[in-house]
């Protein structure tokens, strides 16, 4: 990476010049740099509204970049040391979908962990590809889903015809990494592509104390959620491509099928700025983040009952590495559900964390934090224990349910469907998802058989207060099933 080049922000510079020019707009957006009415400028500020513009000659076009966006994307590629980077403005969901749509066709097979983000399974509904799920296993004490064992992936590749890709979370929401290096070697030996969902791993590329980024290890594509840990605006993301096995022009074509033709310059400029910052300051910043997390973990673990887990989970099987910037705390032994602690932090202490599940909370520590905010979090957790600790300890045992894939998610989704009471759905084929948090694993996806095991688990998860979602019926009492199967 050429540091001097990384200091440039071509798209931002072009926007600055545009801002100074006194151009008269007879194009969209209709607010005309905020001149149409005061409301927008009052709220967002003039500087912001003035660059909310449409594609035009000096500002390039995301659908087919030839000048400043092209240069900014090149700098992004250099920053991640990949052959090609695409700016994405539809969130990392759009990156994940573009990744799958440009590598799979109808009937192709893809290996993916069962705790995959639903954006991936949704992409399979569009494509018609066949999922082969890997059981990520669960850490029994803390109740979270883990990574994929390499041997399970090898078995799946060797025992299935027509596997095109392996899809890997790097890391999972909880910070768990699989042995990506070996997975990539084994996959490439068999001419199988490796795609990484790095929605929670952008920072991996900018600090050696963190697990390795997928592209550094030779993955073929990765979706990096610049806005999550990289510092850009919400909904901005990047798709990284290694051109050895992937035709990036085809990827561009696929992206343009679903991506807006009016990409927001606010989002794109934020990618430019965040990339520069990661390249120049990333190492220093994430050193600080890691130190803050170390401190927080040590202090939280001094409060009896909380368990802020970290690298001790590594077992070289389904936990190959751990992202220490994910400050995840198990709350089971203070007798409170993670979600109760989550609510209490927000309602009583004005602290918003990422999420709480039945037995854990997750705080994201980033560039924006400092010693004072960490101290507040630790002190609040201490107070919550002092005020609210309960004797009884709820236990929630997750048993992995092997999915019975009857047909592709696409076929089941588009087939004629009817709604039935979930209790009476045994043996039918689901047309919908059922997700459960924790541990963040789909219990059912479209095209899968509703077995007795599934029904028992849904009942159990509901009773235990697990958060179920995915069906049209928000209470998950009814489910849509495929009529033809």
């Amino acid at each position: 990476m050429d540091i001097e080049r990384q200091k440039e922000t071509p798209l931002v510079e072009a926007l600055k010049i545009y801002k100074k020019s006194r151009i008269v707009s007879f194009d969209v957006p209709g607010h005309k740099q905020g001149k149409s009415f005061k409301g927008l400028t009052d709220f967002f500020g003039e500087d912001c509204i003035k660059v909310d513009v449409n594609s035009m000659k000096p500002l390039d076009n995301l659908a087919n970049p030839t000048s400043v966006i092209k240069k900014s994307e090149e700098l992004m590629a250099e920053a991640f040391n990949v052959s090609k980077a695409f700016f994405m403005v539809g969130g990392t969901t759009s990156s994940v979908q573009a990744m799958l749509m440009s590598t799979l066709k109808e009937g192709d097979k893809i290996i993916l962990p069962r705790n995959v983000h639903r954006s991936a399974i949704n992409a399979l509904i569009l494509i018609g590809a066949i999922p082969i799920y890997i059981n990520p296993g669960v850490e029994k004490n803390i109740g979270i889903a883990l990574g994929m064992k390499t041997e399970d992936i090898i078995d799946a590749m060797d025992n299935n015809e027509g596997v095109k890709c392996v899809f890997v979370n790097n890391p999972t929401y909880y910070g768990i990494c699989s042995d990506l290096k070996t997975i990539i070697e084994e996959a490439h030996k068999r001419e199988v592509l490796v795609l990484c969902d790095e929605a929670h791993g952008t920072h991996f590329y900018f600090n050696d104390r963190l697990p390795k980024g997928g592209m550094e290890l030779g993955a073929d594509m990765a979706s990096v959620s610049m806005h999550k840990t990289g510092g850009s605006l919400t909904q901005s993301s990047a798709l990284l491509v290694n051109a050895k096995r992937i035709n990036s022009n085809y990827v561009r074509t696929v992206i343009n099928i679903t991506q807006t033709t009016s990409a927001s310059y606010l989002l794109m400029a934020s990618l430019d700025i965040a990339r520069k910052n990661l390249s120049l300051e990333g190492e220093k910043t994430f050193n600080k983040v890691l130190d803050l997390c170390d401190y927080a973990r040590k202090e939280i673990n001094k409060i009896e009952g909380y368990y802020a887990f970290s690298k001790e989970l590594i077992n070289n099987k389904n936990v190959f590495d751990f992202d220490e910037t994910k400050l995840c705390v198990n709350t089971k032994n203070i007798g409170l559900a993670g979600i109760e602690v989550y609510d209490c932090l927000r309602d009583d202490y004005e602290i918003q964390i990422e999420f709480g599940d039945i037995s854990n909370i997750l705080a994201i520590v980033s560039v924006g934090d400092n010693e004072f905010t960490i101290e507040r979090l630790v002190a609040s957790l201490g107070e919550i224990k002092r005020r609210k600790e309960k004797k009884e300890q709820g236990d929630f045992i997750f048993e992995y349910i092997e999915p019975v894939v009857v047909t592709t998610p696409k076929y089941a989704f588009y087939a004629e469907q009817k709604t039935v009471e979930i209790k009476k759905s045994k043996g039918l084929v689901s047309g919908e998802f059922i997700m459960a948090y924790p541990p963040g694993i789909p219990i059912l996806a479209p095209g899968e058989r509703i077995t007795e095991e599934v029904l028992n688990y849904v009942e159990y998860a509901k009773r235990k207060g697990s958060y179920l979602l995915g069906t049209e019926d928000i209470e998950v009492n009814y489910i849509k099933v495929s009529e033809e199967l």
Partner: protein
Amino acid sequence: MELWYTENHTDEVKFSIKVEEHLYSNQSKFQKIDVFKSNEFGTFFTLDGLMMVTEKDEFIYHDMIVHTALATNPNIKKVLVIGAGDGGTIRELTRYKTIEKIDLVEIDEEVVTVCQKFLPQTSEKLEDERVSMYFEDGLKFVRMTEKKYDLIIVDSTDPFGPGEGLFTAEFYGNCYKALSGEGILINQHESPYYDEFANNMKRAHKRIKEIFPICSVYQAHIPTYPSGHWLFGFASKKHDPIKDLKKEEWNKLGLKTKYYNTDLHVGCFALPNYVKEMLNNV
């Protein structure tokens, strides 16, 4: 040429003092520290441009933040003071021979150094042998302390910047934990007048009320603080500031004070209606 110090009390209200000399200016690790000399208010110092202490009117603030608690419970032995690097609160505390231990927690060591150099009037007693100084985050200190104090005084800046953590529920909760059964918490409670300060005040009151069984607010008139109308919080596990006032006992001590007296002690808890309403509605 005229040199003026100006503080924006709101976006549309300014307060200015004519300055004779700008004695000191430096960005510390946490904040900008400035010391000025003026004819009207003597030497004064500011943090991030906001007025902290002037030689002329500091007696009001320091009398009120200390003596109200000590006249309610003259048996206070162990005191924790958070903030207060100027030393004024410590100076008033050291006048009580019965106090055995004073821990001072100030985030910014440079505030102490600067005040020792330019404001001996407030900082003169920082060297008292009962005083121990800790330069760290107040929230961290109370969270970690295993000692029990009879009195905690929160002599903080406004709740933005380094003082922010000292206006939070977790801070007040940890103070409760660090107080003995006799414990009293006094805090700088902002002002009811301008909206921004009033919001801080309401928020602080709400938080303290949720934690302490006894929780009231008292007032003083401080010319150099925004609107001049300033509030303090009195929270306690046991002592009521008015019912338990030890009037005779305190007067027997014979402490000469310029603002505080035991009549004013009772009177300062009587608040204007609009302030009462704000406090009742939190």
